């Protein structure tokens, strides 16, 4: 086996000051800016009128009774269940009881749902616009420079990704151009933002894509869902619960826990 001599490329140290540090600093500052832009653009949740709030809260009440029935005594659970089931089935909690049987309105025509979509659009824009700008900035100013060597070997497949704009055939894929430093920054700066902005920051787009897209409540009371059907389903769920209490046999457990 022949030893392949290690490729060395002599680079001007000024490359670090004029390419590496500007890209890094711009990436960090963009992340911070994106975080504060997201914080500032976040709209306060819209105030709901009394009827809508009652509809949503009463459904949530039913769900939490179903989830925590074991902390209630048998009598109080039965009282709650009976009240809730009667109210659900008669539809007295509904926002507008008269259009009970009608199909739900088209979600696109509802102005409140458009607001949610606008918020999502804004978030997407806050990610896309800076990325496009920085990409084109790096391509315009710094394309074609080889700035660094990765400390670990890579296969030849990475060559087109790491050495974009450097069309040299025999160069080791470990050498990387400025655009690949940009990609490394995208993936690796999350820990820096954690340190600078706290752990629930909105600076990194990668974390946002992996996180939950929408809060649960929006799904539950979202447009296009018939509240009457939800109520009927919840009434059925409540009716089939086989009640027991955590305080059943509590004397036995207490006596077992006592050691003399």
């Amino acid at each position: 086996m022949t030893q392949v001599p290690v490729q060395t490329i002599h680079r001007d140290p000024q490359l670090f000051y004029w390419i590496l540090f500007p890209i890094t600093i711009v990436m960090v500052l963009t992340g911070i800016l994106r975080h504060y832009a997201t914080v500032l653009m976040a709209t306060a949740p819209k105030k709901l009128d009394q009827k809508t709030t009652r509809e949503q809260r009463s459904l949530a009440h039913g769900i939490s009774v179903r989830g925590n029935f074991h902390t209630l005594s048998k009598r109080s659970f039965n009282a709650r269940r009976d009240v809730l089931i009667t109210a659900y089935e008669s539809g007295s909690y509904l926002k507008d009881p008269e259009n009970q049987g009608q199909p739900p309105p088209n979600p696109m025509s509802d102005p409140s749902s458009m607001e949610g979509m606008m918020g999502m659009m804004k978030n997407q824009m806050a990610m896309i616009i800076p990325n496009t700008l920085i990409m084109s900035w790096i391509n315009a100013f710094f394309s074609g420079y080889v700035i660094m060597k990765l400390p670990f070997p890579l296969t030849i497949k990475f060559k087109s990704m790491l050495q974009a704009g450097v069309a040299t055939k025999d160069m080791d894929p470990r050498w990387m151009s400025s655009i690949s430093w940009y990609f490394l920054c995208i993936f690796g700066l999350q820990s820096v933002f954690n340190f600078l902005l706290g752990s629930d920051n909105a600076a990194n787009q990668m974390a946002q894509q992996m996180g939950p897209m929408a809060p649960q409540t929006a799904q539950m009371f979202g447009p296009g869902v018939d509240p009457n059907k939800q109520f009927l389903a919840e009434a059925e769920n409540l009716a089939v619960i086989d009640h027991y209490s955590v305080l059943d046999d509590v004397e036995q457990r207490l006596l077992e826990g006592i050691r003399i």
Partner: protein
Amino acid sequence: MPSERELQISPIVQESLMHNARTLQNLQSLTASLFGVSAGILGLESYSGFLFYIVFSLITSALFYAARVAPTSISSGKAPLDTSRYFVGAVEFWTGGLMSGLAGFILTWTLFYGLVSA
């Protein structure tokens, strides 16, 4: 795994679990970047660099266990090296930081390797 009945008798609070996990993850991502700095300055390459990272993140987890988890966990009757008082999964506690910190490690490793060996 405790049964549903036991969970209802002594419930587990999700918020506290998440807070614990997040504290651990913050520590690990921060230390991962610092390990990258030291690996770059030492001039480690390929396998030795990754080995350095794995060994030192495991040491970080062990120190975290010794400093923050062990005192109350052992005195409450858990076996040594049992993290179930504060964390759900043992595997997650010991190796969870490896994946999440890797990107930060590679970033700072590359940066300082490039700066030192240029």
